[in-house]
Each structure stands twice: as C-alpha cells, then as structure tokens.
C-alpha cells in the first residue's frame, strides 16, 4: 500500500503557468465526473437488480476500476458476508485502497480497488483523497443496500405471517360481531329439539301418542339437530385458521353457501338480503373460504351502513356477473345506507381505519389484500344518501379449467 516515489506518467509541466493551472483543473474535473458517473452507475445497478444483492455486487465490481485515475492498471473486488466478487481483470498483488461495508453496525465485508502496477504517489499511496471519499461512499451505499434488502426480506416474511394472522383475526372478529346472533340462531333448533322430546315423552307417558305420531316427532327432532349442526359447521369452517389454498370454485355456490349465515345477521337488523346471481359462471381458482370471508365482511358493513335507513330502504343486494369476454368474475354488495363521505376515499382500505364505534378497522384492509392475492381488485362507489356499492373481481384463468380436467 505504500506509494511509489517517482512519477513516470505525470505530464511534462508546461512553461505557461496559466495553461498549467487550466490543465490541472480540467484533469480534476474529469476525475470528479468519473466519480459522479460511478455513483450514478451504482444507483442504476441497484435499481435494475430488483432486490438481488448478488446482481448489485457483481456489477458494482466492474464499475469501480474505470472510475479510478489509472483504469488501465486498476481492478476491484467486493466481499460481503463471506462471498467475494472480483472484477474480470482481477489480479493479486500491488497497491490497494479499501473501505469496510458496515451492515447494521457490523463489519460485513469490504470494497477494494487495486493498482497492479506502480503509479505516482498521491494522498494515500498512489490513490487520491477524492478516491478515498468515493470508495467510502460506495461501501456505505452497499451497506445501506444490503440493510434494505435484508429488511425487505424479513419484512416480506413477516408480512406474509402477519397477513395470515390478521386474516384469521379479522375472520374471527367478524364472527365475533355475529356471534350473539348466531348463538341465538343455534338456540332455536335446540329449543325445538328439547320441546319436541319432552312433548313426545308426555304423549307416551299419557298413552295417547300413537307410533306414527312419535315417529313424526323423532323425524323433526333429527331435522332440527342437523340444522343446529349445520350452523355450527359453517361457523367452524370460517373461523378455522389455515393456509391459503387455490382450488376450483363456483363463486355462485360460495355466495349461496353463506346466504344463511348472512341472512341471520340481516334478519335481526331488519334488512332484506337479495341475491342476484349470474345464471352460470366459469370456475375460478381461489380460496373459497377467503372469498366468503370478503363477501361476509362486505355484507356486514352494508348492514351496519343502514342502521338509520327507513324500512323500505333496508335491503342488501349481492350480485355476481361475468365481466369482459370471460375475463373476470365481479361480485358486488350494495346497500342503500348513509353512503361514504368523499374525503374518506381510499383511507377505507387502510388498516385500523374505522367509522364504527368499537370497530377494529381491519375488515376492508384484509378483504382487499385477500382479493389482491387472488389477482383481483376491490373498490367502492358511493353516493351520499343513496348508498354504497363495494365490488371485487376475481380473474378467470384458463389453466384453472385445464388442471381441473387433467385431474379427472
């Protein structure tokens, strides 16, 4: 790293001092431009690398030698977390200028520029003070890039985990809001079962019930038990926490499946639930339970929005339709409630945004992320005092049908 004492390549000093000053200035300017080019180049590389640290390092290492004063004898290498990237012309020996790459306060690697032949002595061996600043800047930049990518990866993992947890939570939350209504709904068949059984018992004890009558009562008891079980099964399907999956789904069937659950809620709020399902829809690849959760969430919101609505307006319409030449299926939920103020806008979809007292503010945010994970979109249109429509789309993909066919 010690610099040479002679300077064979230094230009012969011109006799005119003014011209000499000018040439020195021009040279300095040229070096400055090279340094700037190098930094711009690095920004470019980071941009193009799309999150791959290997791509950033292998390109950066080629960017360095031309930016130093003597490119013809310069090579470079970058080491990060035990992995080394060398410029194509790399050779050992000679004079080096190095800077540490620090990631989260820890020295994780280094950037090195090497002159393989002797060059005149400058500020730091054969290297200039400007080059020190440049190599420091590059090392620092690489440190930030590494931190960013690391954080991004952690964030992605964390986000996926969080999204799965929140999906579960919001599902449970929506269920919680419906829970007391559902408890009431399960209690009805239980009440009927208990009363039927006690009546049958009394008829038998009094010797007045003939076999046919008792048999009819038993049939009704088992029907009511199935009804109670059905309500509980649907609830469990929705509350159970599981990994997202993709399977062929009939969107109409999904909606019909939650009609009962939703209508319990609607009935107790004096709201009519109307389904307008398209006559036939292509199969989509989706997580059916998640889509049901989105629809239920939108229906719940619609019911809440009509709290102050008059009796003739208390209606929620759930509609399905095929949009664009078999492009996507649209599901919409419309109410005739209070509408949504324009200034609220897309804040609606942000986590923890809520207009409901006691609301968690997660429903729409989760719904949108579910729909987006299916490649669709969720949006709303609202007219103050005339109500709101929320709609989401799920793309129809041909490979969905194909894979389904090949399985058979």
């Amino acid at each position, binding site marked *: 790293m010690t610099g040479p004492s002679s300077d064979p390549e230094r230009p012969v000093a011109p006799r005119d001092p003014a011209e000499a000053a000018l040439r020195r200035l021009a040279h300095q300017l040229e070096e400055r431009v090279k340094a700037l080019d190098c930094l711009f180049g690095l920004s470019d590389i980071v941009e193009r690398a799309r999150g791959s640290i290997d791509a950033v390092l292998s390109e950066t290492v080629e960017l360095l030698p031309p930016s130093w004063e003597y490119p013809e004898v310069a090579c470079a290498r970058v080491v990060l977390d035990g992995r080394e990237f060398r410029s194509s012309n790399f050779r050992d020996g000679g004079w080096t200028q190095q800077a540490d790459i620090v990631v989260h306060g820890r020295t994780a690697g280094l950037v090195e520029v090497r002159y393989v032949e002797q060059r005149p002595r400058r500020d730091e061996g054969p290297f200039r003070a400007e080059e020190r600043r440049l190599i420091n800047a590059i090392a620092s930049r690489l440190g930030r890039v590494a931190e960013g990518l690391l954080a991004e990866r952690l964030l992605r993992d964390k986000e996926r985990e969080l999204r799965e947890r929140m999906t579960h939570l919001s599902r449970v939350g929506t269920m919680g809001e419906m829970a*007391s209504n559902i*408890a*009431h709904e399960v*209690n*009805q*068949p*239980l*009440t*009927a*079962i*208990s*009363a*039927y059984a*006690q*009546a*049958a018992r*009394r*008829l038998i004890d*009094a010797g*007045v*019930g003939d076999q046919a009558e008792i048999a009819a*009562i038993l049939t*009704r008891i088992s*029907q*009511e038990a199935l*009804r109670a079980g059905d309500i509980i099964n649907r609830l469990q399907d929705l509350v159970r926490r599981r990994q997202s999956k993709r399977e062929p789904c009939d969107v109409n069937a999904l909606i019909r499946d939650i009609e009962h659950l939703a209508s319990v809620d609607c*009935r*107790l709020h*004096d709201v009519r639930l109307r389904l307008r399902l398209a006559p036939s829809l292509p199969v989509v690849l989706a997580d059916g339970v998640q889509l049901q959760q989105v629809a239920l969430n939108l229906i719940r919101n619609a019911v809440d929005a009509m709290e102050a609505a008059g009796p003739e307006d208390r209606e929620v319409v759930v509609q399905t339709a095929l949009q664009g030449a078999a492009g996507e299926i649209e599901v919409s939920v419309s109410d005739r409630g209070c509408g949504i103020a324009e200034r609220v806008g897309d804040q609606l979809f942000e986590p923890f945004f809520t207009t409901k007292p006691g609301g968690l503010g997660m429903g729409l945010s989760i719904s949108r992320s579910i729909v987006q994970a299916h490649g669709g979109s969720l949006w709303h249109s609202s007219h103050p005092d005339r109500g709101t429509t929320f709609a989401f789309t799920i793309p129809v993909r041909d490979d969905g049908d194909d894979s389904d066919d090949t399985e058979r």
Partner: protein
Amino acid sequence: MTTRNADPTVFIVDDDAAVRDSLGLLLRSVGMVSEAYASADAFLASFDPARPGCLVLDVRMPGTSGLELQARLHERGAALPIVFLTAHGDIEMAVRAVKAGAADFVQKPFRDQDLLDKLQAALAQDAELRRQRADVEEIGSRIASLTPRERQLLELVVAGRANKEIAQDLGISQRTVEIHRAHVMRKMGADSVTDLVRLVMGSRS
C-alpha cells in the same frame, strides 16, 4: 255473575317455525289449547281482547320485537299475561319485560315443567283478572237497574246514614225509606248493609 266459557288459549308468537311447532305439540301433550303466530304483527292483526288466555312471546324477533308487542298491548289496555322466551344473553331484556308487567320469562331451551308451571300461573292470573273485571261490570249493571230515588238512597246508606237521617234528608217517611231500602238490597243482591258497602266500594276501586 257470568264467566266467559271460551277455553283459555296459549298464544305463541315466535319467528322460528320449529319452535312454534314443538311448543304447540308440547302444550297439546298436556291438553292445553294453543295458537301460533310467526310475528307480532300477525298476532296483533287477529288479536281479540275478549279471548282469555296468555301469551308466550319471543323477546328477539325481526320486525316488531317482543318488547314492542308488550308495549302495544299495554296501549290497547289489554291485560293478557305474557311469558317471555329469552336466550342466554337476553337477561337485560327479560328484566325490562318483567318491569313492564310481564308475568314471567323462561330461558331457551327450557324445561317443559318450568314453562308449563309458568303458563298455568299466567292463565290463572288472566282468569282472576277477568273474574274481577266481570264482577265490576256486574255490579255496575245492578246499580244501573236502580231508580233515581233508589240510587240516592244507596249513596246515603253506603255513606253510613241511619234510616231516620235519610228520611229527613230526602223529605220522605221512615217507612218509605225502609221499602226503598229493601228494593235496593234485593236488586243489588246484598244480604246485609256490610255486604252492600263491600259490593259498591269494590266496584269503585
């Protein structure tokens, strides 16, 4: 005294078909007459205050709720005793219902004997109320059958005046007072002055 001879009816109002059906069957199994309605409005549409019985009412119903039906009946002056059917979480509603005059409440699902006992009590309460009301009406019609002079006399007797005082007040002979008095006692169906006072005071309370 007349009593209406119609059989008391248990009116069931619940939006759940299976609950109505099973409840009706249970009541039939013990020989009680019931009629079922799917909503408060359906019940109100056919409601006849003259029919004796009691009401089994679901607290939570879409449309007109159980509590609202109770209030409407109250407005109409109907005293039909109500046994509310409540769910586990509805205690607050049940308390409100009882404060508003409900006879009782049972939690769904219920023990048959528990419900039947409460219904019997409610029917007895209804019968007692109707009997009292019939008595009051009967005495009213007996009083209406008196002549104006006899009614004057009745007021004075009930006010505790002696025959002599009454004769002076009305400017008639004591003998005439005695004749009127005998008519009043006969028309009112009273055995003694105390009996007469009790009848008249009872009809006025």
